[in-house]
């Protein structure tokens, strides 16, 4: 019995082995699939609530099947894991009521050939907006105070949006600063700063949430808010040249802006310009000592930079000039900053650039340009540094200048009518990473004829000049504008 079983197993094994030698004749019936292409007017769509979301598509097929197509539209948040996917349509063209919160979303459009089961997909970027969720926030001066107006991405204007949610109270007269609006840990922080006051307002409706003193453990007295910066988890309120800090990456619990750090060399008064690099923290220019300091994000203490070498182009610890403006030019692992100075005799202009993480063999100072030929820059009020070119835009009188830093020469890029007062100038920076216009458009607020406030959009060409040497849009009907700040979608 055992021998018979062994023989049978041997025969089966031999048959299986020989079976592997069977030649595949390859007599298959291949057919081309129906290739489907999907097109639409735009891949990036904004919907202003309570409008419906409408998307029309054109579908072309190479080999239409007899059973037709099926469609599915799926909406989900663009940021984070798409845990809340919602099917909002099953037709070729979409017309859907949006119940999602304002924010950035992705919309997947699936088209399936019912005969073959082969599916094609196209993805859209959707911005769900309210009238206050995204756009330029404009601070307008009224009789007795200031109010806010929104210019939305679809060019709608919503006027006086602060006072109705704040018991008809206006912002203090002279309110002229809304620092860059950032989002951290799901919270979008909107601060509104006045000459002797400040407040934290709701990003949803600009409701005053916290008065200025409540932001601090020990509030500055008297308050003189100048700027607020947030980078990763590190906040700084600059008040009267002092730095009030807060880290957001702390265990839960009470957390306010703490006391300013001590000056390593006595008193200091920091210029309120944002210079931050993840590798070393904040960089400040002390207008008393006329030198740079670095500020640790671990304990917020200030410290000097390493000693200068004889070959260095300048000494970070001993500049000896009056800072006019400073900003980052190139962002990355090695940030590059430009700082602009006038000498103490006020008869020369300078541009110094430095890098925060010098490659091996290089030093922190990168370049210096002495003797800039830049009309009106001594007294300019508004500055914007390009993020792609070594160009600085500044305003003087009714003129916007562009300074070509390596060439050390500035020239007008746009001149407003005589008598125009330029009231604000900002670079368009949308925190939405997919926005193609970020850092490629400058917004300018003016006061014309003494009473007419306007907001202009100036797209920037690859050369650094304004596209077609003029603006692309202008918004009118404003009074005296004190400030414009872009508010990204949360």
């Amino acid at each position, binding site marked *: 019995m055992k021998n018979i079983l062994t023989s049978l197993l041997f025969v089966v094994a031999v048959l299986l082995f020989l079976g592997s030698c069977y030649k595949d004749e390859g007599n298959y019936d291949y057919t081309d699939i129906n290739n489907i292409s999907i097109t639409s007017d735009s891949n990036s769509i904004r919907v202003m609530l309570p409008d419906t979301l409408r998307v029309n598509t054109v579908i072309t097929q190479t080999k239409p099947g007899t059973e037709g197509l099926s469609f599915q539209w799926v909406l989900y948040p663009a940021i984070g894991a798409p845990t809340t996917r919602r099917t909002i349509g099953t037709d070729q063209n979409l017309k859907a009521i949006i119940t999602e919160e304002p924010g950035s979303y992705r919309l997947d459009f699936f088209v399936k050939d019912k005969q073959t089961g082969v599916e094609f997909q196209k993805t859209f970027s959707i911005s769900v907006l309210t009238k206050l969720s995204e756009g330029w926030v404009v601070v307008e001066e009224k009789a007795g105070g200031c109010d806010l107006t929104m210019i939305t991405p679809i060019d709608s204007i919503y006027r006086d949006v602060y006072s109705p949610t704040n018991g008809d109270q206006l912002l203090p007269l002279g309110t002229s600063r809304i620092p860059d609006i950032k989002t951290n840990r799901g919270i979008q922080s909107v601060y509104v700063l006045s000459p002797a006051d400040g407040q934290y307002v709701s990003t949803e409706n600009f409701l005053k949430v916290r008065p200025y003193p409540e932001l601090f453990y020990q509030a500055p007295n008297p308050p003189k808010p100048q700027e607020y910066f947030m980078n990763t988890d590190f906040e700084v309120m600059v008040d009267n040249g002092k730095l009030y800090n807060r880290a957001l990456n702390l265990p839960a619990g*009470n957390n306010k802006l703490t006391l300013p750090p001590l000056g390593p060399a006595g008193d200091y008064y920091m210029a309120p310009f944002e210079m931050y690099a993840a590798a070393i923290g904040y960089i400040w220019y002390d207008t008393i000592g006329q030198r740079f300091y670095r500020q640790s994000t671990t304990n917020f203490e200030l410290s000097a930079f390493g000693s200068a070498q004889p070959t260095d182009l300048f000494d970070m610890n001993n500049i000896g000039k009056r800072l006019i403006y400073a900003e980052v030019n190139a962002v990355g692992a090695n940030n590059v900053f430009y700082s602009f100075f006038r000498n103490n005799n006020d008869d020369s202009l300078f541009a110094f650039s430095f890098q925060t993480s010098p490659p091996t063999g290089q030093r922190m100072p990168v370049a210096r340009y002495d003797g800039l030929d830049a009309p009106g820059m001594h007294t300019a009020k508004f500055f914007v540094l390009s993020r792609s070119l070594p160009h600085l835009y500044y305003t003087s009188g009714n003129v916007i200048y562009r300074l070509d830093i390596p060439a050390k020469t500035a020239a007008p890029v746009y001149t407003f009518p005589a008598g125009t007062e330029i009231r604000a100038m900002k670079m368009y920076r949308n925190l939405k990473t997919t926005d193609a216009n970020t850092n490629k458009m400058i917004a300018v607020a003016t006061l014309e004829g003494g009473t007419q406030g306007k907001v202009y959009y100036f797209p920037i060409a690859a050369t650094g000049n304004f596209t077609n040497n003029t603006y692309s849009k202008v918004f009118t009907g404003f009074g005296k504008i004190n400030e414009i700040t872009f508010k990204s979608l949360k």
Partner: protein
Amino acid sequence: MPLSALLILASCKEEELLKYDQPAMAYFYKDYFNVTAVNDSTVYSFAIRPDAQMTDTVKVPVRIMGPAAAVDRVVNILVIADSSTAVAATHYELLPVIVKANEFTTFMEVVVKRTADLKLGEVKLWVEIKESPDFKPGIPATTPTNPHAGGNLKYKIRLNDILTQPSNWNVLTSFFGVYSKVKYLFIIQATGLSVFSYGFSGAALSYADMNFLNDQCKVKLAQYESINGPLLDENGVRVTFP
């Protein structure tokens, strides 16, 4: 077959709820999360109180084992005479410890008194829970283990008018650095606080709060040094803060 049927039927027997059938007991409660209560002792120093304050009350949590009762009950706490150096009526007064009706917890309350000799040295008060008509001594000595609390029958109160290191200094070092009496007194003056409720669940102070206190100390120390020069502690070491 009959055996398996019996086993199956036996499994259907209803089990009675467990009930506490021991006599009522009382013990000093040791909260795992409250580092100041983890130890079997506490330090009370008049040195961090205003000069005018001559008495205070030290409260030590007491819990019972067993059900609550409909009447007030007494916990018998006696002084361990051969281990104590504090003098009754002079340094302290031990108040009656009552567990009120329908309650499971109470406090041992000891009125401590400021006397001149406390500036010269520390006195100790050792107490122990003894049997009373209402309670027997409960948990003798157990160490809290997360998430369980512990208990003890003895408790020590150290009483002085000298600056003494807060019991949770080990979690304060990242804000205040190495302990010294001079530094601690400076911290009290700079912050207005002598007790730092930090480092345990339910603590009153957050990490950011402690950072602010650290900043306060640094600012005040800089002001002090600008006038007086470096502040040296009792060991001759310069006072600094991290």
